[in-house]
């Protein structure tokens, strides 16, 4: 028993060390002549049976299967992470106040004032519009600033790249060097298609979309919608026009300069009017802005002009994103 164990252990040891099983009647090879180059010397006396050591086998195995196994382990770990996060959050959700119950802590005196006095305090029929553009207007101002930040950042990243590229194309040497230094992706193509169907549909639908967008923007204080969603609808009209008639036609009235000037001006009007209302509110001064009667189109104090400003900013910015992403320029 002991001997057997020893033999098994021995063979295991040999396998790990890479010496292979030792034959019964082993003939030990003679020592190689000393004048042979060092590299040709056999590794050890069992060299005939030399196999790769465990380490070598491991590295070979890793070379062949490593990436595959790694990706499997990685996705397994991802799923595990996901399950852990989800179960933790589910355990939390199970203890939260019940769904749809009017006794929840969120339905408190804050909400009561928004609903009961929101109408005559802000003049807006849509309580949400009154909430975001009057009660909590600072958040909404921050939100427009986020959009502005993203717009200038995207303009910086993509707008400048296109100009540099053109410079590179002008001087082939630079381009060559650039290719040597960095392997570039496939060249970015621009598409110009003359599609009669698209053009016809666009001619019919662009006025409708524009009108829809304007209605959503202008009725922001009366019905669902408002500056942001209306602006997004307006920008889709611009995008459709750019697709159907080509960018040049849209560039005639809307280029980088107009974009910057219009969105900065609109944001400036927004900031100044909101700043006036914050200032008067905080210092308990009388604000000259009338509230109007609820339900009229000219009501809600600053909400209507603010919605129009936001609509302009959003339409310009989202179209700007589109133009920068597809053409790399405006």
């Amino acid at each position, binding site marked *: 028993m002991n001997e057997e164990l020893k033999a098994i252990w021995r063979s295991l040891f040999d396998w790990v060390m890479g010496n292979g099983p030792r034959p019964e009647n082993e003939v030990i090879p003679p020592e190689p002549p000393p004048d042979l180059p060092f590299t040709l010397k056999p590794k050890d006396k069992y060299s005939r049976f030399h196999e790769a050591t465990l380490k070598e086998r491991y590295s070979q195995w890793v070379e062949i299967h490593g990436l595959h196994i790694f990706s499997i382990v990685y996705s397994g770990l991802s799923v595990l992470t996901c399950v852990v996060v989800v179960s933790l959050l589910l355990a939390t*959700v199970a203890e*939260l106040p019940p769904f749809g119950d009017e006794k929840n802590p969120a339905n408190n005196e804050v909400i009561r004032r*928004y*609903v009961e006095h*929101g109408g005559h305090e802000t003049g807006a029929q849509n309580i949400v519009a009154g909430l975001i553009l009057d009660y909590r207007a600072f*958040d909404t101002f921050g939100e427009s600033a986020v*959009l502005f930040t*993203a717009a200038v950042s995207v303009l910086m990243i993509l707008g400048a790249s296109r100009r540099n590229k053109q410079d590179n194309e002008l001087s082939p040497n630079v381009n060559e060097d650039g290719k040597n230094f960095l*392997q570039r992706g496939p060249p970015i193509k621009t598409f110009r298609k003359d599609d009669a169907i698209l053009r016809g549909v666009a001619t019919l639908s662009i006025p409708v979309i524009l009108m829809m967008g304007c209605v959503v923007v202008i009725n922001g204080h009366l019905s669902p919608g408002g500056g942001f969603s209306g602006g997004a609808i307006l920008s889709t009209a611009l995008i459709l026009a750019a697709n159907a008639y080509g960018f040049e036609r849209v560039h005639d009235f809307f280029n980088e300069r107009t974009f910057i000037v219009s969105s900065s001006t609109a944001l400036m009007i927004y900031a100044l009017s909101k700043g006036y209302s914050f200032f008067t509110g905080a210092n308990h001064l009388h604000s000259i802005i009338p509230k109007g009667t609820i339900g009229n189109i000219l009501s809600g104090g600053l909400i209507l002009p603010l919605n129009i400003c936001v609509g302009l900013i959003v339409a310009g910015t989202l179209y700007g994103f589109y133009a920068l992403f597809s053409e790399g320029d405006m």
Partner: protein
Amino acid sequence: MLEKLLLNHYEAAAVILSGIGLTNLLLQRNLIKKIIGLNIMDTAVYLFLAAKGYVAGRAAPILLENGSGGWVTSSSVYVNPVPAGLVLTGIVVSVSVTAFALALTLKLYESYGTLNIDEALLRMTEQQEELEAKVDEAEEGILS
């Protein structure tokens, strides 16, 4: 616990979705998928908020007319408007972030030809080594 989860089914779905989104954002290696994961996570959180604002049997927060030319302003008629306001802000934030992240992704692809940040690092080090080797060769050439 399961009963409560079934009661809070919107919230439960929202946290499952946000968990999936978070995992995608953290662990997907393709940047486009990371960004989609970000969007999934954000919308899931907004779903959670919107579900928290819902009160059974109440109307959307737009003032209704009562028969006599006035407005119904009882707070037991409308759902909670605050989550809607917060989510509106949040949607703008997530579209801005998406556009910015996509722009950076395109730029990364232009420079490295890959959508994977780690692979980009690998390529950068390879290219730097090549460049250094070239510089060394050139220096040796000058010396000789």
